[in-house]
């Protein structure tokens, strides 16, 4: 890398030009999606205006739309994320007290690359470096729930108001839940070996990243994330398309409307065993909202699906006692419930 400074500079321009061109093509294509889906459905031997036509149009329109949006968002966030690493986040959080630490942890959770397969090393790495337990939890709650995929898709499909409220309430849940867990002083409920471990400080050479490296990181993120979640998205859109075409609006607004108070806890309960990521659940959210489901109920469902996932709890069992996992679930679920009710109250 060091020997080719000159060609690197020239190719920075090439990258920026290429990205600008790609974005222009992206917008041109994106504007054609709606007319194209109408046209495509008209060519099919389906009676116009039928439930099937409505479903098919939703599917044909939403699939490229969501995939294109996702590509754009993931690329941009991949570039942003190249400025953050879990090791750096830990170094920032290690000296923090509770309170401010919870806020910082939740905020950093948005940007720090996180994969649930890394949840255990991350948890242990944080706690052993002196990051308070509650602060670690704030991070662990925020990281999967408020990620770039969720925010980008919410913004693109449902508008900035929904995206911003989701961000605000997601952060609040992560901060408050982590703080509550910290107040409870549950360090004794960690698995024994976690309590005793004293991790060495890692001295990773901070990579001197060029802008090309960052663009490449963005592109790698696209390949990796879009490559990993595309089938979730297709499945989510298929469910969304079915809801869009076949589920009567009146039925949904009765069972998921703002007047049905029990729908919020039901949505949270339903969400726990379901495991999907934000990319798969958002097309469903879009279709549910279109049919008159209440925003709070739908967001509670979405948060529950993403933040309270059974596989992640099974992984965390390696470091947390069952009691501590139960407290974690109870605190987070209460937070989601509160958000659901509040939303339905505010926006109905």
């Amino acid at each position, binding site marked *: *890398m060091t020997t080719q400074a000159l060609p690197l500079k020239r190719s920075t321009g090439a990258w920026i030009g290429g990205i600008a061109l790609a974005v222009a093509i992206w917008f041109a294509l994106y504007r054609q999606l709606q007319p194209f889906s109408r046209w495509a459905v008209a060519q099919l031997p389906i009676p116009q205006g039928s439930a099937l036509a409505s479903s098919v149009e939703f599917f044909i329109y939403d699939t490229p739309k969501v995939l294109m949006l996702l590509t754009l968002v993931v690329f941009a966030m991949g570039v942003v994320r190249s400025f953050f*690493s*879990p*090791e750096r*986040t*830990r170094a920032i959080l290690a000296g923090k007290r509770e309170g401010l630490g919870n806020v910082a942890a939740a905020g950093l959770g948005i940007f720090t*690359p996180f*994969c649930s*397969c*890394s949840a*255990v*090393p*991350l948890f*242990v*790495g*944080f706690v*052993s*470096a002196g990051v308070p337990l509650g602060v670690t939890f704030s991070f662990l709650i925020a990281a999967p729930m408020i990620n770039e995929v969720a925010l980008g898709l919410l913004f693109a499909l449902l508008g900035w108001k929904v995206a911003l409220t989701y961000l605000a309430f997601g952060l609040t849940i992560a901060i408050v839940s982590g703080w509550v867990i910290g107040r409870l002083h549950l360090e004794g409920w960690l698995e024994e*070996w976690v309590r005793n*471990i004293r*991790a*060495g*400080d*890692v*001295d*990773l*050479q901070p*990579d001197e990243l060029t802008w090309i490296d960052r663009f490449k990181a963005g592109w790698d993120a696209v390949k990796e994330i879009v490559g990993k979640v595309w089938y979730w998205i297709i499945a989510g859109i298929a469910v969304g398309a079915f809801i869009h075409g076949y589920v009567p609006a009146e039925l949904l607004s009765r069972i998921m409307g703002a007047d049905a108070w029990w729908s919020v806890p039901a949505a949270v309960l339903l969400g726990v065993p379901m495991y999907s990521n934000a990319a798969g659940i958002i097309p469903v959210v879009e279709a549910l909202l279109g049919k008159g489901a209440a925003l709070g109920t739908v967001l509670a469902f979405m948060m529950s699906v993403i933040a309270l996932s059974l596989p992640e709890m099974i992984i965390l069992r*390696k*470091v947390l006692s069952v009691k501590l996992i139960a407290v974690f679930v109870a605190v987070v679920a209460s937070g989601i419930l509160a958000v659901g009710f509040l939303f339905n109250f505010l926006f109905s």
Partner: protein
Amino acid sequence: MKEVKVLGPGCARCKTTEEMVKMEAAKLGIDVSVEKITDYEAIAKFGIVSTPGIVIDGKVVHAGGLPKTNDLQRWLQA
């Protein structure tokens, strides 16, 4: 002989990392012994927070995500 340790609980990317290390070492003609560390406690003791991690001759050179090929070559040659 370089001692390389690949740290990771056994996710797909950890296996890929292990193969990359072996392949790059073979390409460069460097003699390596590659050991996989899957135990969480042992991983945590190295101080890394994200996996897969790579340790060469006792020094952590990488943590989180697949390594880049040219970085890998640089670490192996160092």
